[in-house]
């Protein structure tokens, strides 16, 4: 329903500009922005729903006056999935922002609402346009709006993060443009339709794929080009962080799939393997890097890196399946990837909104200053717990189902004929298992540090429950989290057409009644709804035992409010595992992973020359690439920035616009 979608887009735009117009009356601006986003999100879902179910592709194009082709819109199943992802999170974030942005009144709450809406709209555009030029245009719009969101708090750190983000985003979008340029050179057109039809030689296809992999991978936060992400995402207002981390990174994956699978047909198996390896590295390292964080939003950002890794792994194995003609592998792999894209958006959105609620309530992102909030913010705690359980892939919630499919895709590869598959499939499963366990550790420690134990600061002691509208925003996502888990048979059916389209095969049965299975129930099957039901049923056993042997209700004394037992000494808030301290053993055990630095440092000795010494450097917990890119960028930036010093912030914004224009010009020239 392009009309509905257009309405949705217009609503975003209306809301955005409305907020801009009303920026003097910030409360109204925030309300307009938030409500329109929520409504537009709902419209967006409605718009693409039929596409998703039917699997048809909708095309719409206007003749363009510009020389680089028509402004064409194409909504296929993949786009539909992406639009749903964007819309759901946008709607929830919109609701959330109604109260959340009240904290930003006076520092441009209206502007934030404007940029948020524009940002969402640009993301929708990215996934539906079918022309390289407009794609880049939307892509740049997305980057710039999100850049403004990153720096909206105008704190030094945020500005710095924004700067880094800005440079890296543009640096890597150059790669995307070059990829498109190469394809355009082949086809003579900027239309994606011609890209699909093109049949570039293998070497060229490989180059294009690699360019796309890194160009889009940077946006996705793929290790080793993730370093901007844990800085930029947390700096943005939390609802925007939710959008960036929950949605925008997926557009990177979308890009990879669009180019690698849709345009290039996933011709070569090593593309898939490469993706798998990058995915595995991102997943494992991303999960480990969460362990060192005490800033809740940075932790979530690293966790995004990890989840992107999981999605890339599934995508990679699917591409291998495509390339090697293993339909089943491709099918299950894409199913897992798309499912996880959907799920991750839900729970990461939920968690970022939760982090926003905490930030709003406590004015800090430092988890060491939290603690004891489970009693003070029980609803927030509960919703955050749902998110944590989902991200830890606990059955029968949604994270479990998509990871289960990912496991199945690896196992099926492992049963398959090729040696590479038999070797790498199970190893990928192992990587996923490590990731899962680390994620669990991390989120246990995180939830515990935030909500468990005793309040460790005055602001934690004074914390109050989150306002309702924020809880509603979180609650919506939490509902989807649970729903996508318990309703997994429906979800896999709904994703069927999109998966079938990507894997270039007929839609395979992946659900029957209450069960889901990887196309063949003999391989494996699982039923989240039945698991949930039996869990409730089995609860009877302990309840019966308690009923029989427990003291009867009237005599069973429960005394609450006791001081925690700390060997008889006065309990203090310090006597609790700190968020990072609890994970120290893991960091100790897997020091090797952090020592990845050591090797890369050798390669980049020049860049690292300013650092005090190799060993000290290697001992740092921060991932090397952070260091590396930061150093590089900061060096570059300070060179450039030196000249900026006289300029004001506004001038910098103008300057960024110049850069954007310059890029467009480059593309224009190319098209010519």
């Amino acid at each position, binding site marked *: 329903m392009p009309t509905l979608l257009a309405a949705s887009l217009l609503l975003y735009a209306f809301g955005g500009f409305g907020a801009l117009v009303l920026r003097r009356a910030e409360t109204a601006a925030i309300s307009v922005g938030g409500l329109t986003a929520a409504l537009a999100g709902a419209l967006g879902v409605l718009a693409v729903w039929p596409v998703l179910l039917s699997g048809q592709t909708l095309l719409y194009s206007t003749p363009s006056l510009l020389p680089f082709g028509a402004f064409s819109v194409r909504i296929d199943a993949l786009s539909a999935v992406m639009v749903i992802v964007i819309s759901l999170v946008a709607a929830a974030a919109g609701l959330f922002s109604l109260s959340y942005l009240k904290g930003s009144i006076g520092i441009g709450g209206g502007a934030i609402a404007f940029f948020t809406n524009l940002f969402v709209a640009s993301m929708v555009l990215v996934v539906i346009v079918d022309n390289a030029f407009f794609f880049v245009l939307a892509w740049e719009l997305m980057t710039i709006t999100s850049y403004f969101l990153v720096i909206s708090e105008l704190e030094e750190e945020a500005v710095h993060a924004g700067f880094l983000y800005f440079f890296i985003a543009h640096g890597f979008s150059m790669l995307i443009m070059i990829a498109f340029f190469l394809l355009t050179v082949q086809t003579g057109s900027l239309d994606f339709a011609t890209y699909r039809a093109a049949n570039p030689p293998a070497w060229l296809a490989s180059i294009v794929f690699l360019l796309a992999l890194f160009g889009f991978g940077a946006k996705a936060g793929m290790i080793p080009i993730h370093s901007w992400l844990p800085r930029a995402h947390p700096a943005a207002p939390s609802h925007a962080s939710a959008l960036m981390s929950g949605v925008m990174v997926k557009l990177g994956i979308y890009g990879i799939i669009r180019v690698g699978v849709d345009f290039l047909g996933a011709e070569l198996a090593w593309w898939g393997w490469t993706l798998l390896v990058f995915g595995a590295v991102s997943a494992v390292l991303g999960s480990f890097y969460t362990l060192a964080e005490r800033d809740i939003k940075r932790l979530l950002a690293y966790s995004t890196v990890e989840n992107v890794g999981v999605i890339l792994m599934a995508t990679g194995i699917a591409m291998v399946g495509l390339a090697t003609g293993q339909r089943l592998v491709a099918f299950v792999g894409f199913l897992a990837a798309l499912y996880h894209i959907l799920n991750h958006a839900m729970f990461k959105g939920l968690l970022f909104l939760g982090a926003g609620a905490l930030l709003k309530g406590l004015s800090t992102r430092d988890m*060491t200053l939290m603690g004891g909030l489970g009693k003070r913010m029980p609803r927030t705690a509960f919703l955050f717990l749902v998110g944590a359980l989902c991200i830890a892939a606990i059955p029968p919630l949604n994270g479990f189902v998509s990871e289960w499919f990912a496991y199945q895709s690896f196992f099926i590869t492992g049963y398959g004929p090729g040696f590479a598959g038999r070797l790498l499939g199970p190893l990928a499963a192992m990587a996923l298992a490590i990731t899962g366990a680390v994620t669990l550790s991390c989120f246990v420690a995180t939830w515990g540090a935030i909500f468990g134990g005793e309040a460790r600061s005055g602001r934690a002691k004074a914390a109050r429950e989150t306002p309702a509208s924020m809880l509603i925003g979180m609650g919506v996502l939490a509902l989807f989290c649970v729903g996508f888990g318990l309703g997994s048979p429906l979800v896999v059916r709904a994703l069927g057409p999109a998966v079938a389209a990507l894997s270039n095969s007929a839609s395979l049965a992946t659900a029957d009644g209450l069960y889901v299975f990887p196309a063949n129930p003999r391989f494996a099957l699982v039923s989240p709804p039945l698991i949930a039901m039996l869990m409730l049923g089995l609860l009877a056993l302990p309840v019966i035992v308690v009923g029989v042997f427990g003291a009867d209700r009237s005599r069973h004394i429960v005394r609450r409010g006791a001081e925690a037992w700390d060997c*008889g*000494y*006065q309990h203090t808030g310090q*006597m609790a595992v700190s968020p990072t301290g*609890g994970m*120290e053993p893991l960091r100790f055990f897997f020091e090797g992973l952090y020592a990845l630095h050591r090797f890369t440092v050798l390669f980049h000795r020049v860049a690292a020359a300013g650092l005090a010494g190799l060993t000290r450097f290697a001992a740092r917990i921060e991932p090397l690439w952070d260091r590396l890119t930061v150093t590089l960028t900061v060096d570059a930036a300070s060179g450039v920035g030196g000249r900026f010093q006289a300029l004001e912030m506004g001038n910098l914004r103008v300057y960024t616009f110049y850069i954007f224009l310059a890029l467009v010009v480059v593309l224009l020239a190319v098209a010519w």
Partner: protein
Amino acid sequence: MNDHVTIRRGQSHLDAIRLQYGAAIEDAEWQTENQVTVTVALASLPEVVETLYYGREGWLATIVANDERQLNGHYALYYILSMEGADRCFFVVRALVPAHKPEFPSVTPRVPAVVWGEREVRDMFGLEPVGLPDQRRLVLPDDWPDDLYPLRKGAMDYRTRPMPAAPAETYTFINEKTKTSTEVPLGPLHITSDEPAHFRLFVDGERIIDADYRLFYVHRGMEKLAETRMSYNEVNFLTDRICGICGFTHSFAYSSAVERALGIDVPERAQFIRSVAGEVERLHSNLLNVGLACHFIGFDSGFMQVFRVREKAMTIAEVLTGARKTYALTLVGGVRRDIHKAERLRILELVAELRRDVADILDILMSTANLEARTRGVGRLDPKIARDFSPSGAVVRGSGFARDTRTMHPYGAYANAPVVVHTEQGCDVLSRVLVRVEDVQNSLDIIEYLIDKMPEGPVLVEGFSYIPQRFAIGNTEAPRGDDIHWVMLGDNQKLYRWRCRAPTYANWPVLRYMFRDNSVADAPLIVASIDPCYSCCDRMTVVDVRKETTTVVPMKELERWGRERKDSPLA
């Protein structure tokens, strides 16, 4: 007064410091042939102690403060050094602190070993060690009034109980390494500590960055008690209760101190019986420690087996003294019980059984898969730190120093006994366990030797004359290190001042260094490896450097708080 003594040990040290400090040396007096007390000018105290400590192989035994205002108008400080190089003796540096200006130059900056002693002096006497870096209380409870010094004569009745001023602990724990970290409280009621002590571990995850501790939970005021309620012979039953494990060696040391001060010649047979009891105590104490070490590393079978065998040592104690513990065997002048044929045979039989059992058990322990892995390299005590802080017993012997007061300053019947001072070079928990294991075997040898060579004759001297103001040191080697008792006799069959330093008191300060860079899981094991005896350290007190003003809260308020546990009156 004791100038009849002809063999004067310590003369060389005296000559040396005389040469170096000349006029600062005011007086020298021998208490026994190997105990000399030298009075020095207060100002040169730190230098003299440093010279003796580092320059002449002195180790710190203890510090005694004494309120001698009734005797000479001053407070007196006695820095007791055990000279362990050439010319072995107890060399006591005494300095008088004027009553009107109760402060003295701190020795701690030069000799770290005295830190606890000086903190305690401040707690108990209100003498200010000028230049002492650690200004916190050591011995007295957090809520003890700031200006009440229990051991000053006439300051207070021994039964005085000031009302508490705080409903919670106010002690400040110092993390020397980093500013922020998680704190793990270990004790006072931790499953692995038989006694209350509070360790504050500053950790990152499981790794200990630094540690601090608050001991003296069991400070009851025994030194005051011994000077007030009790007569000199009753104190023997108090010293038994300094420690539930090695109480006997305390009584032994105490009795020796009084006997030396009074010049009593204790019958030889009594000395043999005392030494047998001392070795029995060492036997069961070391077995206890080895057993607990097994327990703490989760090897409960080893723990139980060791305890099974240890029961035999307890039976020997029962045969010998009539009780498994708190032995009540010695009196000033001799012992209360003799060893007759029945006892002798039973003891020898049990010793023979123990010899077999202990060998079996040690065999088992040594062949247990991961026992060594669990203890090697854990809780390292650097020999340099050991030298700085004068620890004793297995702690210092595990770091390579052959310190044992049985051979260093022989007493009792040890002069000819087959004492083997075993040392290990590993400096870790394993080394200390091995030292104890060797000690167990050695104790069995010594018991057999003593029983075999036990002379005839009386076991008790009665009717000696009691001379006030004489003083002397009693030293014994407890299972954990050396016990040092310093006694000054008073009028009326009571003590003027009694100071006891248990080995654990000397061993605590190094613990901080042993903790660092180990994991929380090893903390109980490390604590156990010094075989601590918390109650041994009953007799001292300390107050906070960063003096937090304590407010006095009405008793009623506190009671209410006790009942309701809310709205603390001090919050």
